[in-house]
């Protein structure tokens, strides 16, 4: 559980309890069996929406094939009952296990894809299963009745019982979702959704968190499907694996509010009764009216309030007046000191690193080293390979050749988040923030990435914010910050992981003279505290003040290495980068 979210969690749980009780009581007074069915289906589809929301809402991995898990649950329960007389009380948990296994089987290849390729590929799974089931002859499977041990087979003459079970399942799903929301799991997913590369560079193992969210999501969807089959008593491939089923999860969640636990609940509460009623009233004349309603609903919501009802309502009427203050973490201790590298040995040693893109040698046999506590400036004209070098060093790109050792350990060939965990913090040329998260959470992501536990992570984030002077802005959403504050926040995120080396990519880009001086002061203070920094920068006057040593890159090669004064007087550097004007101005 993250620090400072307890109160909000308790409030949400209270709301949940009240809603569940009120809903159940209302359901007790409904006698029309059709309305009773609708009252049962609302929580089922809401649960399905909640499951989709965990993967696609929080994690941003849009799945158009969630029917795969729903259908697996439904068919497990039904076939279990037909062939082994397995009670749904056991069939639903079994379906859950199979759903989880299916999630691993599906996720392992599919998470190699991103964005719309992921979404489209997910679509293929339920459809492939659908055709296989049709081929195997399971076109329509009915559940056998067990009159003698009715309750043991989840068979009730009183439809209200189903409503109660459905509400119970939904409550469990919402609680799981709330717990995820208020833990590092949820924060990792939100970070991945908003900027996967930044999350990786902050030490988040995005692949693992995505897989976990898919497994949780798949299990929950299987439960919804299994119970749905029990309520309807008959399954067909189309009714549980079909496109409309997958769409249902997408639609109720987007309509109600994406990445909020209440979104799917609100969406299902509005859309399910609406569509079911229309289907019942007009279904004979207008078959498919349900699908049309869903289609119109998601187009309208996408164009009018892209994040869904919950957020629109909240932003309009319940916007936070004052940003939350820094949580109380007690006295903040200085960062634990890393054991220094052996004397005479550099902290970072880069040897003959090369990287080509097709025929272009972006980085070619680059070698340099950085001593502990040193600030190394990397300069060079645009396209010299500076950013590519950083990308190779922290695992965003693979190197074609060479080695890079941090305190003797090989950095190359590791994933980005692993390099981060070795103690390498990174900022980006274009700031990569998580715009909708508060500044504090942005920075905590870095601390979690380094493997710190909840309290320690918050403490580390608070310390980092104070180091860069952003403590007063900690409650603001990152999207509201100025450019300078964003640069500092990104620096704080890198610092929160307690790195031993910082890779800063044009941290001063786009800043005015005074802002530049502010950031420089922060960097100088970090150096005084013993931080080792490797910085790419074009602003020469700033670099002259800051850097201890320069490496000049040109066309992917090291053109010169040395003390700042020697570098700016080097004829080849002036030729390639600084230009004659620079020389003229210096001599005035």
């Amino acid at each position, binding site marked *: 559980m993250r620090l400072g979210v307890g109160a909000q969690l308790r409030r949400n749980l209270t709301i949940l309890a009240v809603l569940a009780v009120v809903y159940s009581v209302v359901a007790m007074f409904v006698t029309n069996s059709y309305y009773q069915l609708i009252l049962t289906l609302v929580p089922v589809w809401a649960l399905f929406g909640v499951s989709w929301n965990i993967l696609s809402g929080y994690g941003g991995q849009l799945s*158009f094939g969630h029917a795969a898990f729903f259908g697996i649950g439904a068919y497990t329960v039904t076939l279990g009952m037909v062939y082994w007389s397995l009670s749904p009380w056991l069939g639903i948990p079994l379906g859950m296990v199979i759903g989880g296994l299916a999630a691993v089987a599906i996720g392992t290849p599919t998470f190699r894809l991103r964005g719309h390729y992921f979404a489209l590929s997910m679509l*293929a799974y339920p459809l*492939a299963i659908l*055709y*296989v089931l049709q081929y195997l002859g399971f076109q329509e499977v009915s559940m056998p009745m067990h009159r003698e041990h009715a309750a043991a087979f989840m068979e009730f003459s009183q439809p209200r019982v189903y409503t109660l079970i459905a509400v119970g399942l939904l409550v469990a799903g919402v609680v799981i979702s709330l717990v995820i929301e208020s833990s590092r799991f949820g924060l990792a997913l939100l970070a991945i959704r908003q900027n996967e590369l930044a999350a990786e560079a902050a030490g988040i193992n995005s692949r693992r968190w995505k897989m976990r969210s898919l497994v949780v999501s798949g299990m929950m969807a299987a439960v919804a499907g299994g119970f749905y089959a029990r309520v309807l008593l008959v399954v067909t491939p189309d009714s549980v694996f079909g496109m409309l089923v997958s769409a249902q999860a997408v639609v109720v969640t987007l309509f109600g509010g994406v990445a909020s636990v209440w979104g799917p609940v609100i969406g299902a509460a509005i859309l399910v009764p609406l569509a079911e009623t229309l289907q019942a009233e007009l279904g004979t004349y207008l*078959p498919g009216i349900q699908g*049309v309603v869903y*289609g119109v609903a998601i187009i309208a919501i996408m164009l009018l309030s892209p994040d869904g009802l919950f957020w629109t309502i909240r932003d309009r009427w319940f916007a936070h007046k004052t940003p939350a203050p820094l949580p109380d973490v007690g006295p903040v201790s200085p960062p634990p000191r890393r054991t220094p590298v052996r004397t005479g040995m550099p902290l970072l040693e880069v040897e003959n690193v090369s990287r080509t893109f097709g025929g272009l040698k972006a980085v070619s046999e680059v070698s340099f080293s950085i001593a502990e506590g040193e600030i190394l400036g990397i300069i060079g004209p645009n396209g010299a390979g500076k*950013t590519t070098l950083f990308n190779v060093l922290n695992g965003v790109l693979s190197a074609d050749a060479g080695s890079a050792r941090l305190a003797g350990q090989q950095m190359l060939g590791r994933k980005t988040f692993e390099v981060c965990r070795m103690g390498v913090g990174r900022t980006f040329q274009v700031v990569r923030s998580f715009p909708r998260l508060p500044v504090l959470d942005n920075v905590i992501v870095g601390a979690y990435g380094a493997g710190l536990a909840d309290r320690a992570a918050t403490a580390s984030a608070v310390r980092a914010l104070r180091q860069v002077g952003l403590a007063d802005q900690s409650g603001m959403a990152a999207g509201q910050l100025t450019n300078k504050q964003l640069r500092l926040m990104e620096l704080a995120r890198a610092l929160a992981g307690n790195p031993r080396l910082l890779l800063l990519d044009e941290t001063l880009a786009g800043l005015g003279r005074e802002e530049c001086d502010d950031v420089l002061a922060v960097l100088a203070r970090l150096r005084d505290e013993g931080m080792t920094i490797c910085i790419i920068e074009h602003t020469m006057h700033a670099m002259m003040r800051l850097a201890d040593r320069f490496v000049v890159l040109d066309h992917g090669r090291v053109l010169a290495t040395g003390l700042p004064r020697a570098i700016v007087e080097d004829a080849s550097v002036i030729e390639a980068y600084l230009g004659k004007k620079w020389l003229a101005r210096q001599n005035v």
Partner: protein
Amino acid sequence: MDLEILIENVLNALTAGITIGSIYGLMCIGLGLIFGIMRIVNFAQGELLMLGMFASLYLVTGGRVLAFLGPYWGPFIGAICAAPIVFAGGALLHRFLISRVSGLRTAGSLDEGHFGQLIVTLGISLILQNGGQIVFGSTPVAVRTPLSAEAYLIGPVYGGAMVFLNKAKLVAFFVAILVAIVLYLTLEYTRLGKALRAAADNPTAATYMGIDVDRAYRIAFGLGSGITAIAGGLMATYISFGPFVGFDYVIIMYSGVVLGGMGSILGAFWGGLTVGFVQQFSALILPPQLQNAAIFVVFLMIVLLRPQGLFGRSAERA
């Protein structure tokens, strides 16, 4: 004897692969314009195909507009006439819905607007499928032509092995090739084609060059819709279809476009042709119900095995 049957099956799969594959290729060109070149994720492309089938059906049999052409010419002329109708539909969809989540509005945003496009086109797809059920009914229909029951027989080529060339598929094949060539020449050599490609490649830069990007996008989206509709009209002569038919072909189209390489019209055609081959040859070993499942497996293989870099922004700039 067994060898004869094998040879006959392989030869027939080959010819069916070429004819059906070419029509898939044409279909893929439509999506290739929209997804491959404009980078709009259109989930409703299968429904545009379905609209093409129904447009052709109503032109030929329902409204009897083209009845005077007779059952031989009518269905194929009908398929081509479906294009302007669906073109207009596609352009309108783009004008009122898709343009709000694509093009200049989303250029440079975090995911280039793909999230919004997926959702909006999913909505369009749901409306067209289910609305189609209301308007067209759910009984499978077909555009009847006597040609679909006739075949040229070639052979015997080896022992008793014969090759059957279904006449409807053969004519459809020629029409598809013709349309593909005309479209290719138009895009490659006319001013309109160049403007479309420029606008699609970089909307911001195209604006600075004085191209009306919104209009270019609308036309390109309409073209993509119309081309897919022709393919639908052609298919309608040899398969029976209903409002939900589009779904199976969405996956085929995306497989073809991705396989052929994003952004290339010719590539999309070859991709579709390849998928057609795979489907026909899978029929040699798989039961018919599993042919579509095989397509999905092929799609997953294509998307997973192609290196990440070919799929646009996977290797993003840090």
